[in-house]
């Protein structure tokens, strides 16, 4: 996830940290969902992700949290 360039998208493959995964799943980051790296804060962290095939909504999260999301 953290390897994406701004504007690039990927499909969620799996979530590493089990506890963090519960939170991410509830917020709609289900394996198979498309995510796009939308923007980075001026200091590089946090970042915003656009979630969903239809670009349903935007999440903001810290880089450490995003790092638990693995992409296909």
């Amino acid at each position: 996830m953290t390897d994406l360039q701004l504007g690039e998208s990927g499909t969620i493959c799996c979530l590493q940290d089990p506890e963090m995964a519960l939170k991410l799943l509830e917020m709609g980051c289900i394996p198979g969902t498309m995510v796009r790296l939308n923007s980075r804060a001026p200091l590089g962290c946090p970042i915003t992700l656009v979630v969903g095939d239809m670009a349903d909504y935007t999440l903001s999260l810290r880089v450490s949290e995003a790092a638990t999301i693995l992409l296909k």
Partner: protein
Amino acid sequence: MAGGPLLSGRAGAGVSAVQLETAALRQPGPLTRIALVGNPNSGKSSLFNQLTGLNQKVGNFPGVTVDRKTGISQLTAQHRAEIVDLPGTYSLYPKSLDEKVITDLFYDKASPQYPGFVVVTVDASNLRRNLLLFTQLADMGLPTVLALNMMDVAEQHGVQIDIAALQQELGVPIIPMNARKGVGITALKIVMAQMLDAPSVSFYEPEEALLPMIRQIRYYFNLHNDYLALHYAHQYRHISLLSAEDRAYVQELTEQYGFEPTARQAQETIARYGRINEILLNCVSVTRTERNEPYSNKLDKVLTHKVWGYLIFFGVLFLMFQAVFAWASYPMELIDEGVAWINSLIQTNFDGPLVNLLTEGVLAGLGGVLIFIPQIALLFAFIAVLEETGYMARVTFMMDRIMRRFGLNGKSIVPLISGVACAVPAIMSARTIENRKDRLITIFVTPLMSCSARIPVYTVLIGLVVPDESVLGVFNLRGFALMGLYLLGFFAAILSAWAMKLLLKTTERSYFIMEFPVYRWPRWKNVGITIVEKVKAFVFQAGKVILAISILLWVLASYGPGSAMEQAGKRATTEARRQGLTPAELDSRVASEKLEASYAGHFGHLIEPAIRPLGFDWKIGISLLTSFAAREVFVGTMSTIYSVGQDADQLTVQQKLAAEKDSNGQPFFTPARAFSLLVFYVFAMQCMSTLAATYRETKGWKWPLLQLLYMTGLAYVSSLLVYQVMK
């Protein structure tokens, strides 16, 4: 004539029967209790405000420090209901203590708080994620209504929802609405007034393998369905109503069946999303392929830009600071003058000991509470607009990296900066920080920021010992000293936050992840309700403490042991007559002698040994005590107390202090003493209003007391160092 009484008697009976009937219509038994649940940003508070208006009450959930907002809603002419507004959440598995109040409410069917039914607010433009919580609630077996909110946004995005089909699939009534504009409220109220059955559709069946365990839990606790029993297996450690034996029983069962809560929960969430996708496939069509937020994205390019973003943010802060600092001063003066006017009105028209208690104790204390209202109202008007528009999420986004280093959070910046005006509204504004540890640290360190009440103290003392010279031809030395004091407070706050980050342990895992809302126009009704709610919370909760301490301080300053004060007054009067002083000089002389003989004066003498190493004497001791009402009182007290032995009353406070001599005839206020006192005022917790605000926000005396001890201890040690080094 004889039939008169009979007739009237019959007529009377008729009237009372009619009255009884209408009374019965108006009061159809106990109020229905309705819980309002939904994702954050699903328009839940707008809906709550629409349903209840200003008919809201803020209380506590039992045992936790989460506000419990309830309101009465007139659903139909005959039917009223009590609405409970629950914290926004994404699921029924709580991730924070705040969210735990939701499950506590739904787990205990026997509780009188158990809701009759639930209104779930759902963002129609974002159905998939919002329906997760709904399916969990429906499986809990609670009668549920779906408030399909933000229909206008969904339409803009080209999302078309077949309401009839969705209603069929979900098995509950669905009301399409736009809560911000009030569309659909009447329809929702009519449905809310009906008696509803539990939903007939189930969205998730626990796996076969888990059923033996689930059934055992279900029958042991006599629960009404399997899904609730499954929740017991997940949450038994955190369910407030379970006893130690109950927990041990569930724990044994989960171990026996090898139940893995994290994996099960993840599996359940994925299964639910699968089911929701199936449902949406049949009921929702999207006409536009790529959703675009052209305005939000363009605005974000500027508002979170690495240069413009920060500049604009500081501009917003500056405006907010101006409002709280400068604009609020006009209504504050009005309140001040108004209270003084009422005071003088009472004092000129009435006489007696109770009049003094009323004017100098109660009314002065009441004035001390009311004076904060303009600042609180203005600050929260700003904060509400920032929250409503979605800008606050951007502020958090930009500041998080910097603030996190010090154990704070992106959102801590607003309380910290507002603390420069006044710590009371600043502490209340820490409410926007969801993470409890971050919120607590922010509340704890905010009073270290130099507030406006310290300014009079700073200017008097700086004027006393810092020469009015310029450095490099432009900068004024006194200006430098003042800035130094502000920076001292700021660094103390940041470093204390960092130390607390290391010391405070928390079992609650902290997540930053949040939804990044699109920009919206603020709803002025929501802004207005926020202001009213914050002002009410302050006046009725913090205000009580402030009033009580004001009266206590008044008693301490007005009464002394035995007849000491009376004698001091007489002594001052005869002495003054002998010296031939004017009436004004006489009054000030009497006042200062009386203050010395009062309990407050005794307190000053009592603590003198403790504060002597800091360079302070008993006179400063009294001022420290009276500063507790408000720091600016320091100047007034010093003015009164240093009148002792002075020849003229015309001198300014500064001149009085400058004229004070120590036992060797040298000026008492040396730079060492003045700086020691300044540093003391930078750090010391001397504001009962702030303590009352901390008490209200943390819902207990532990944190305000720790704050008092820590800040005053820090002040003592720092002043000691300053005085001993500079002496």
